[in-house]
């Protein structure tokens, strides 16, 4: 079980969080033309990285904030965590 540092609450066990996928994906802006390819990339296409991965977690049984986590997908090492509006 991972030990994740919520930037709002501090160190917490993984079972308080739920995983939210790749944090680098940016939703295309509303009311703008989006090509099929770009839209497909946004909705479906994700890299299955081995190594450092920036990802989203929600502290669902805690402060309910979405946070950013940089984690090694092979070793589960967590390098840093950040608030939703911060860059990681």
């Amino acid at each position, binding site marked *: 079980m991972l*030990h994740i540092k919520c930037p709002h609450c501090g160190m917490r066990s993984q079972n308080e969080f739920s995983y939210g996928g790749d944090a680098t994906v940016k*939703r295309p802006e*509303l009311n703008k033309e989006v090509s099929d390819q770009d839209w497909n990339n*946004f909705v479906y296409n994700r890299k299955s990285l081995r190594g450092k991965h920036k990802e989203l977690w929600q502290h669902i049984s805690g402060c309910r904030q*979405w946070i950013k986590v940089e984690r090694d997908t092979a*070793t589960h090492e967590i390098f840093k965590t950040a608030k*939703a*509006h911060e860059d990681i």
Partner: protein
Amino acid sequence: MTQNYRLDNIGLINRDKKISFKFNGKNYFGYEGDTLASALLANGVHLIGRSFKYHRPRGFFGAGVDEPYAIVQLYRNNETEPNVKTTEQELFEGLEATSVNCWPSVNFDIGAINNFLKVFLPAGFYYKTFMWPKSFWYKVYEPIIRKAAGLGVASTKHDKERYEHKYEYCDLLIAGSGPSGLASAYAAAKNGARVILAEDKPRFGGTLLTSEVNIGNQTGKEWAENIISELKEMPNVIVKNRSQVFGYYDHNMLVMSEKLSDHLPKTKKYHPKQRLWYIRAKEVLISSGSIERPLVFGNNDTPGVMLSSAAKEYLKVYGVLVGKKPLIFTNNDSGYETAIEFKKNGIEPIILDTRKEPNSEIIDEAKNLGIQIKFSYVVVAAKGYKKVNAAEIAKISDNKNDLGTLENITCDCICVSGFWTPTIHLASQSGNKTTFNKDIDAFVPGVSKQSETTLGAAKGTFTLAETLKDSFNAGYELSKKITKNDNKISHPTVVEKNKTTHDKFWCVPLPKGKNYKRFLDFQNDVAVSDIEIALKEGYRSIEHVKRYTTLGMATDQGKTSNLNGLQLVSNIENKIIPEVGHTTFRPPYTPVTIGAIVGREVGKHSRPTRKSPLHSWHEKNNAVFVDAGVWLRPRYYKIGEETLFEGSKREAKNVRANVGVCDVTTLGKIDIKGPDAAELLNRVYTNAWLKLPVGKARYGVMLREDGIVMDDGTTTRISENHYHMTTTTAQAANVLSHLEYYLQLVWPELNVNVVSTTEQWAGAAIAGPKSRDLLQKLFPNIDASTEGLPFMGYIEADLFGVHARIFRISFSGELAYEVNVESDNGNFMWEKIMEVGQEFKIQPYGTEALSTLRIEMGHIAGSELDGRTIPYDNSLEGLVSKKKDFIGKRSLDREAFIADDRQKVVGVVPIDKKTSIPEGSHLVKDAMAPIPNPKLGYISASCWSVEYDNPFSLAILKDGKNMIGQKLFAMSPLKNKTIPVEIVSSHYVDPKGERVRS
């Protein structure tokens, strides 16, 4: 009754307390402090079971966790547990055990015929033989093999024992209470660290209990006892025996299984049987010690052949002699310690040492005691079937290839020592890449991966002085790092006998003309010849060799066999062991009961049960409940002997004819506030929200980004910047997370707050033609007319002194209202509704009637919003705005979603108007078409229409738009039904929606 193999004046057992027990139906006794193994040995019982494949007689091999053979079926307090290690099971009054894997009895075992057929049962035998024909596997081979093989039998009864989980945090977790564990725990605890010290055995001290050493002018045992009693008194220390740290997981999370009651005849009331500890440690010290390695020779699985360390432990801890004519077969000095203990207790051992002329203090001591020692000698084979009665021995040449003349020597046990294997399981599980240490012919932990340090024998340090020095230092340094304290304790002086190097020789060659089985894995009957075959057949990876031969795959997980297996593979392959590598050490280190893993999360406790504030009213009024997600909801209110069908029909009819009331508290409710709330709704829902006036509700559909419908519900504008959103019961939590995601990450510029209020409001849906009259009577001060409170209108009012929200919304298709009050007033509201509703013939209705009403109206719900449908499929395309953008919109113009023959919700009526269509049935054109019969659609929901008094279903059907009037078949292979049906509009009742607006 005396015990022939028990000594009077040695051991840690309590001779004042006799304990009687039964093994294979026969009565025995032992003493408090015995294990089942030591008690049986004291009684001279060596035959304990049969082996897995050849059904060869099995005895005791070890004295602890590494035991490969001596497992039994245990009976305790009317419960049974399979494959219990006798070496770990403590004796309790009334214990009963039987052998596993033998029939009809351990003395006469029919399966033993396999032993004589062993030439036909080599490695991979089952894989090769029982492959063809394919159909034979299920019907013929498997049942027979299953019956003949297998170990113990699992209980089929419900386990009434209680198991608990516990979470703990500490500075240092120390696994193992041998010398390194005690020293590091003591140093760290004295330096103020929060320490957990775990020992899997009942007694603390590890090897200190059995070795002849001196620490600070005390015997090892006394020193251990003093340290433990001091640690137990310290408030910053948790000391646990009978507790196995079995797994090392991510971020220094370790799991420990504590056995609190397995040693008692019966678990005390309200006490758990076992407790699983999840421990998050800042630093972990692995002091798990080492396990003695077997030497491999002919028939080395005969009962009476055992590890020399085990023989010593039986003697020193339990006062039990494993034999009275012991033969010690060793390639290192450890065997001498065992021989000396025998000698001191009046037994004459003979030592066979594979080494030519070793010299050390301990060998000198053995010589001085007059013990007979034969150097450059080996055991070629054990003699005897159910028990060793002699050994075939021979001199071995210096190059270890040639045996001298075979001699027979009488003995009743053979104690083997092939040097020591560090227990590196936890270190390896932590991610530590182990390295091979040539000096000790074994793997040891390499560079730490997490915050773990391995100490003592577990890292290959076999002298006490060095172990203690390292461990005191490690405890001090690591605790200093955490606590910043600097209290260093002085190291005691250590007196121990020095030892000399071991012999790398471990596998005795077969003499000419002899075909003895030489076993590596004792539980799974894997012999040297099996490994040879596997390699001959081309298996190279050690992981493949393991799976093909089953080496190390038994319940002991190869604790005594793995390294010898590796040595053999490397010898044959002409490789060195590091090239061969070792198989993965996966948790758990020892078997853990399913009960401990599950903990309290069984039955009703496997997930929370949520109850509405009206629950007790439902109970009092004969509600039959149904699980709706985590909620318990009334399915129908039973009158007399009514069935579900009769009761729900009565309730639904009453809604259509008079008025009904339904508990809708479980619907998800989200409070939305902020100046940008309307904008958020406009982006989340497919329809337009910016112009919704205050005091009005609107139905909305929300999509996922891939265009699939996520949820639906009504949202009401309470005031300018305040909205009340409802979701389906099932999706409430997901919708909240969804909104939070967009607000926090995608559109942080929106000034909106969302919070769940599901539990803050109790809700009652009042539905039926008489609902307006009822509402007017409940709220005399409001104007309940359609002008005063129009369809989708919202007002707040006073319900006999209680604040209430009234929404004119309908799920049943009838004129209907939903009244919400604060949860604490829920019962009051409900009782008032029932009381005032009397004159309108009100009846409560449950989820079954609720479903019936919505299905025949063609209202979609969870069964249609199944994660595969888009708005069009649910006939919700009218709610999809063309003008504005919203979540998921871009996906809706994908090719499949705009196809002409896209699936759509339709109504389905059986042609005979009698046969109910099972939910999940497939719709097909031709009932007789060969399989796979092309599927056109599926039945999503079924009911008995109370309006027309015949069955009616909803279906998602390909090209549904053009299928109205078509005749198809609904097929349910599961229920073995084929029903001719007609496709009709999904709006079966009141298609124009006049009733809700009346």
